[in-house]
């Protein structure tokens, strides 16, 4: 079983994005100086792959970090989890904003990992620009079976991939024949483990493997072009300024209870 986990990384959400803008004259977002880390969904996908490897010695895991050299520190962090192979896929300037170009790139990234992957895992959102469209689009482009928002993956004895997900009001268990692409959502069961210190040290010393994407059609204009990007203030909500309750906590709780009782009476509860 060849499992490939595609990882994007995101700008650390704890950092402010005040100056976020396009690089002048390009459709690339200026992220210089902003630290990168794995998103919760990247982490869930990576942990899912590691769990499969731990459960079955025939599972071979290749982790692919898609991005430029700014991601090298992140690549070493991933290497510390000791997948069978880990490499960065991408050149200096890389944009995933055009989904059709991104799907071609991700298909090439998976192919660079292994000629015929059985299972491809991605976070439910791929990087800072994706809202969940890239995993199903990649599956469709490659003709792979797709399961969105899986929270647990295991392998059946007959070679099928068993995936669990919550779909609306119910929990589903799907059994799909490879090749399968699953987008993984965060869950208690797939929180990323901590790497061993000795593996962290090893990863710091090891050389980094970088695979360059194949050249895209030179004249191909992006089907979807990023024209602008900016930090937006939170949307205005109707209530205006917050009214803070005052006085002893007991009295504040009573006032809150009265507020909720009035609301309950107004809605007929």
């Amino acid at each position, binding site marked *: 079983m060849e499992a490939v986990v595609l990882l994007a990384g*995101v*700008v650390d*959400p704890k950092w402010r*994005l005040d100056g*976020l803008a396009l690089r002048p004259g390009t459709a690339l977002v200026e992220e210089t100086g902003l630290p990168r880390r794995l998103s*919760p*969904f990247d982490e869930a996908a990576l942990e899912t792959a590691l769990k499969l490897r731990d459960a079955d010695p025939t599972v071979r895991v290749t982790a692919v970090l898609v991005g430029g050299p700014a991601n090298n520190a992140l690549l070493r962090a991933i290497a510390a989890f000791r997948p069978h192979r880990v490499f960065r896929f991408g050149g200096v300037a890389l944009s995933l*904003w055009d*989904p*059709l170009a991104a799907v071609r790139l991700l298909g090439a990234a998976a192919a660079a990992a292994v000629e015929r992957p059985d299972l491809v895992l991605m976070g439910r*959102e791929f990087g*800072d*620009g994706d*809202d*969940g*469209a*890239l995993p*199903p*689009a990649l599956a469709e482009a490659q003709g792979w079976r797709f399961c*969105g*928002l899986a929270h647990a993956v295991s392998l059946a004895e007959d070679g099928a991939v068993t995936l669990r997900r*919550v*779909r*609306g*009001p*119910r929990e*589903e*268990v*799907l*059994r*799909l024949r490879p090749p399968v692409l699953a987008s993984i*959502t*965060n*869950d*208690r069961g797939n929180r990323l483990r901590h790497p061993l210190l000795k593996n962290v040290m090893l990863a710091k010393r090891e050389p980094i493997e970088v695979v360059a994407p194949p050249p895209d059609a030179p004249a191909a204009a992006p*089907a*979807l*072009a*990023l*024209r602008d*990007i*900016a*930090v937006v203030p939170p*949307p205005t909500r*109707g*209530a*205006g300024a*917050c*009214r*803070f*309750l005052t006085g002893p*906590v007991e009295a*504040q*709780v009573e006032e*809150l209870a009265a*507020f*909720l009782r009035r*609301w*309950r009476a107004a809605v007929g*509860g």
Partner: protein
Amino acid sequence: MRRICALVPLGDPAVADPFAAVAAAAAIAARSAGRVSAILLSREANADAAVAQAAREGAAEILLASHPALPEVPQTDHLLTAFAHLLRMEAHEGLVLLPAGPVGEELAARLALRLDAVPLGRCTDIAWDGRTLTARRPAYGGRAEAVLATEAPLCFAAMRRPVETSAPAADAPAVRAITLDVMLPGDLPPPEIREPAADRPRRPEGARIVVAGGRGMGGPEGFAQLRELAAVLDGAVGASLPAVDAGWAAVAQQVGQSGAFVTPELYLAIGLSGTPQHLAGIGLNTRIVAVNSDPEAEIFRVAELGLVAPWQEVLPKLIEKLRAP
């Protein structure tokens, strides 16, 4: 006149608001002198109520397509095959919208690839300037907004129901009905359905009040109290991503940019800092009440009522007071 096509998958309980795309298409059409056509896909040929709702939401043309071979709860691959067949007949160019949510967003992406179109993702606004379509969508976890442009003849997007509703079309809509016989994928094993446990929490979507907790709850004990409070108020429990990550709440309860989008009348935020990523999952018309020990927490910037205290000092007393006759 620009035609905006809204796809309405009926009968799938995972699609919380199947007509959201019709309402979103009507809002775009009102701004761009467009015309909304709705394609309703159902197992049953008799769907008068659904046709009437599509008309109320603003559809000027309605195609009711039924496929008797659709399973009672269709899988996405079935919907994909049927909609792709319909769109090859009905929409060679223009904008096609689907309701935001896991099913609609997967369909939008895969239909775009299957029909050589451009997937736009989950958009907040779409407009045209001549032949150029401009789409806006959140990025960086909802902290930024990206503006994307394309001249592709056919685009797919997922959209939520707009805050402002549009008026129904002035004239009665033109309604057609067809029965599909396109071959549906036959090699898809149906998913095994796990019965929900008796104590499984209610989902936050559709609840009139959501009682939500974040990292500040500190552990599962805090969420047990949130469940008690939600039960007293006949509401549902929501959670932030870190709380779900920590295993204090189920993934189905996650509210935010990457979780459920909820529009309750009241959102009681306990131990929640109020990150933009979390607030992106709460409707703009929802009133927010916050309890947090940090008076500087961002949640107080959007709340209309705030109580500054540790939740441990508030929740037990609040539950007791609300239970009192």
